[in-house]
């Protein structure tokens, strides 16, 4: 970017074209989360057509989900290299191709490949860049932006479910897959809106050079510390740096990142199972099919409203500096809902549970990526989100089957709810305690850094001998500063970056 541009706009715009990008992210994220769930309508017909068992069909969904989450790192690497826009457009194209070829499949294995792998990979290439680009366009209003973008998921689900049913009734499953392939191509439109943002890349570059310098100091090399050198001038880069340039593995030494990772991996064990089993549980207690489906609708509608609302609350002056606590509270609240569910025996009880569950689910989802951005900063978020999704991939896939095993062994749904509730309350408490510790450490390090900023020489010598977790706080420091000291916010940003 030209020097004039970098000087003119130092931070994310927080508006303007950002709202258009937000709409694109809304569509993209909506498809990524809602599409696998919406496909369930076709499964019975496909099962009859190919003469397979229910579990073989369920694999299609599992492969799709696993690929969407597991391909996270690949998505991150591509975004680090090429930026969000080309990746999303390619992802949309891939999804479309996947579903169109699925329309012509003649065996269940081909469906695994076309719907599971290809479309799943395309959705992964949609999901990550959309979340990443929100971090590039928004800072002050980022929680609202995240909440609104994540609201795409329930809105798309509510649209896709009846649409899929309509397509199926009129065109059978093959025709529906063909048309859905076309609809997925709309992700390319969303991607076209993701204009690469100039000033963001300027700050990213300086942050990346700082990171690569520290990464070098972290890894033992023969070269002495070389300051004031950009990456392009470097020769003889070792392997770690090259990988770190594409996927920042040094994140594993980042305290905040590790806390988030452990807490989330634990949470996802109990996150999705209740949704999967809500309708069967309702039918089990004697409620008819349509009312059971209506429970899920209640959930989706409350979810739709809860996400932007949570975004607004999270953006307020009181919550944003302590957003990690809010997140832990949301998770624990979610867990508490599940623990109380077995007490609800009537339809009204279950409806109330669905309402609260929708609220809690929306709160957690709205802040899922916002808290990660808050911890690691917009620059390293690209790699962070990739690493987090591949770690979550395992527990997400394990959650519902474990719940299923509990239900089958005990013949009663309440143990599944108790398990999910306990896991989430534990995760929430863990995150709460660890983030309290993290906030205190960050405050301490912030004070130390302010003292040293008066003496620049000692900063450099300190840098060489600093422990790893201190180093990481310098990355997250500039992130939180504009929020804590709102008056000096803009000035600090320009100084820090």
């Amino acid at each position, binding site marked *: 970017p030209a020097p004039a541009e970098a000087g003119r706009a130092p931070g994310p715009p927080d508006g303007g074209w950002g709202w258009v990008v937000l709409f694109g992210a809304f569509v993209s994220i909506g498809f990524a989360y809602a599409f696998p769930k919406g496909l369930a309508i076709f499964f019975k017909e496909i099962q009859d*057509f190919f003469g397979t068992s229910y579990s073989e069909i369920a694999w299609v969904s599992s492969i799709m989900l696993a690929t969407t989450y597991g391909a996270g790192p690949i998505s991150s690497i591509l975004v680090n290299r090429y930026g969000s826009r080309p990746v999303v457009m390619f992802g949309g194209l891939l999804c479309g191709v996947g579903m169109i070829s699925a329309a012509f499949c003649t065996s269940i294995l081909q469906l695994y490949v076309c719907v599971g792998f290809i479309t799943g990979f395309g959705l992964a290439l949609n999901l990550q860049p959309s979340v990443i680009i929100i971090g590039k366009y928004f800072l002050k209003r980022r929680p609202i932006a995240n909440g609104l973008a994540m609201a795409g998921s329930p809105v798309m689900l509510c649209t896709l479910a009846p649409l899929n049913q309509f397509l199926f009734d009129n*065109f*059978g499953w*093959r*025709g529906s897959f*063909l048309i859905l392939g076309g609809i997925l*191509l709309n992700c390319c*439109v969303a991607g*076209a809106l993701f204009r690469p943002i100039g000033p963001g890349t300027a700050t990213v570059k300086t942050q990346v050079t700082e990171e690569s310098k520290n990464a070098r100091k972290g890894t033992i090399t023969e070269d002495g510390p070389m300051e004031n050198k950009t990456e392009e001038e470097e020769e003889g880069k070792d392997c770690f740096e090259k990988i770190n340039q594409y996927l920042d593995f040094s994140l594993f030494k980042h305290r905040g990142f590790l806390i988030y990772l452990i807490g989330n991996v634990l949470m996802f064990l109990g996150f999705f199972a209740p949704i999967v089993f809500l309708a069967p549980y309702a039918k089990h207690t004697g409620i008819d099919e349509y009312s059971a489906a209506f429970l899920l609708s209640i959930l989706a509608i409350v979810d739709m409203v809860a996400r932007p609302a949570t975004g607004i609350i999270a953006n307020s002056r009181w919550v944003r500096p302590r957003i990690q606590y809010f997140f832990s509270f949301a998770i624990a609240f979610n867990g508490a809902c599940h623990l109380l569910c077995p007490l609800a025996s009537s339809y009204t009880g279950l409806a109330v549970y669905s309402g609260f569950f929708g609220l809690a689910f929306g709160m957690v989802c709205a802040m899922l990526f916002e808290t990660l951005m808050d911890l690691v900063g917009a620059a390293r978020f690209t790699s962070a989100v990739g690493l987090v999704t591949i770690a979550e991939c395992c527990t997400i896939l394990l959650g519902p089957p474990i719940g299923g095993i509990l239900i089958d062994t005990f013949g009663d749904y309440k143990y599944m709810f108790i398990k999910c509730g306990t896991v989430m309350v534990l995760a929430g408490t863990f995150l709460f305690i660890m983030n309290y510790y993290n906030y205190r450490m960050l405050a301490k390090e912030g004070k130390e850094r302010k003292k040293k900023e008066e003496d620049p020489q000692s900063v450099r010598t300190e840098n060489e001998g600093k422990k790893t977790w201190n180093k990481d706080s310098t990355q997250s420091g500039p992130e939180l500063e504009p929020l804590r000291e709102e008056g000096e916010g803009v000035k600090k940003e320009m100084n820090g970056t």
Partner: protein
Amino acid sequence: LLTGVSGTPQEKNISLASPTKVELTCKLDENSNLKNPQVTWKRGSETISHTIKTQNSWTIQVTISDSSHLGSYTCILKGEKEVSATFHLQVPKIEGKEKPVITYEGDIAVMVCKTEYKPKSWTWYMANGTELVPIDKILPKDKCKFKTPSANVARLEILKLTKADGGVYWCEAIFELGKSKARFELKVLSIVAPLKPFIAIVAEVAILVTTVVLCEVYSKRKAKGREKEFDQIERL
């Protein structure tokens, strides 16, 4: 042994696949207002005489050996009020598909018939007007396949579909005690049918992407033009 509980007029459907002995019992709830009622078991207009009475329940034993013994059995309790419960003894119902099965020309149509009990055999019919004609008589052997993946599931596959194959099909399960039918409607569409909305959507995507790109190029040119103006003004 089958029981029905009285209170309000109750009905229960019982499916029987093969000849068996059945006991039907009507039990009176202890909290009911009816005390010492007169109980009659009826089948249609016929009264059944051999009723076994215990403290609060009345039982009949019925031997179902062929389809003539199937039907509705009612127990009527007469006191101050009249309360009744009916048991419908029937051949098992088989599941078909209420909504039409949609397939495409050249594709395979699959119709699956399921039931809870094991029938003796399955037959498939095609509806020709109001007549039901067995399929194996109309269609050649390479055109359709019958499969029974398990005893209570029947599968009909029709290959190389043409528009003429569309219509109503019936699946019949033959039990020892009778027959049961399920209906399927087959619709054969041409490949063009879903292609029209698909092409419309792809065209819409292409138009939108082009519009977005053009807008961006236009606004960049405008910005460059303005920058040049600023530079010129600065030099002056």
